[in-house]
């Protein structure tokens, strides 16, 4: 299991659209992926789960992945967040 921390810089935090992009990217991987904020940990492939975290601008989230393509998944998700959700990484 590997994990990394990223900061959400998007103006509206992880609202519907960035959340949908995030889920879209994580769903492409076979690994099990979670997002953790504070004491809450949700499935990164679930849009309702991500939205329930109520992540605001400048909040830090932890992405956790477990599985064969865990590293690729984390890299792509980090790339997506770092590009401020403007660039969808090429995956698979």
């Amino acid at each position, binding site marked *: 299991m590997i994990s990394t921390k990223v900061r959400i810089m998007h103006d509206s935090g992880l609202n519907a659209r960035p959340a949908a992009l995030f889920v879209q990217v994580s769903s492409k991987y076979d690994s099990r992926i979670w997002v953790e904020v504070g*004491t*809450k940990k949700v*499935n990164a*492939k*679930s849009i309702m789960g991500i939205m*329930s975290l109520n992540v605001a601008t400048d909040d830090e989230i932890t992405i956790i992945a477990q599985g064969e393509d865990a590293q690729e998944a984390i890299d792509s998700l980090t790339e997506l967040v770092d590009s401020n959700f403007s660039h969808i990484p090429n995956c698979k």
Partner: protein
Amino acid sequence: MIALPSIPIDNIVEELGLEVIYCHDSRPLVVTTSDINRPGLQFAGFFDYFASERIQVLGKVEMTYLETLDPDFRLQQLDKFFQYDFPCLIISRDMEIPPYILELSKKYNRCLFRSSQSTSSLTQRLINYLGSALAPKITRHGVLVDVYGAGVFLMGESGIGKSETALELVKRGHRLVADDAVEIKKVTDNRLIGESPELIRHFMEIRGIGIIDIKSMYGVGSVINNKPLDIVIYLEFWDDSKEYDRLGLTEEHIEILGVKLPKIVIPVRPGRNLAIIVEVAARNWRLKRMGYNAAVELDNRLNALIQQNRGE
């Protein structure tokens, strides 16, 4: 780092209808136990085993006792009492706050509240409230539905069809508790209660359609805010190499927050009507709980017949 359990001051004040007499800052109260303490013995000078980690409640008895004390001795005992780092002090029955208590609360920065309730009903509500507020909590991926009064927690990988199954169940008259993320709270040693995170309550995501609001779409009868978990149904893609339960004589279990729940694994294959299978599982669970186990019953009949044939 493990954060100590704490309760925001506004929550406790609102929930128990308290009046804030003095509270220096807005930091949440650090409360580690749902027990409370009435500090009568401490006022008398006995500080051994003083449960200072508990919320302190002052009732009529303690107040009257304090009034009978010599002012110097009283101040000395109270000063010692206030030096302990207790979460807060609540005075019941809307009693007037003696100036020496207010003074010491300010001196040692302790929160001081007042309640209009009698001491015993206040302590009872306080213990109930703390028990629920301090209960261990966990967020799990899955869908929680109330099916014939049984709390059914549907688990399984993303895309297996949990939400679709729940939708079909709602259409058949059952009630949705939470979709995708379920906050599970351990309220007693063997009881888990699940609810939806407030923000996404009664919303659901159906692939291809998007986000829908079950309450507006199917009405208030189709949703419920929280529900104890009774059974876990695990949906998984049909695996030909795996043996699935054909009898139901043995029960599988899953542990959530240390509570054991019966677990049923249901293989998913196109064309299988999952909603009706979940309904049947819920009915079967209720029958079993009422003491009737179809698999055992059939086995008994078979055994009796075999015995009879052997006798002839």
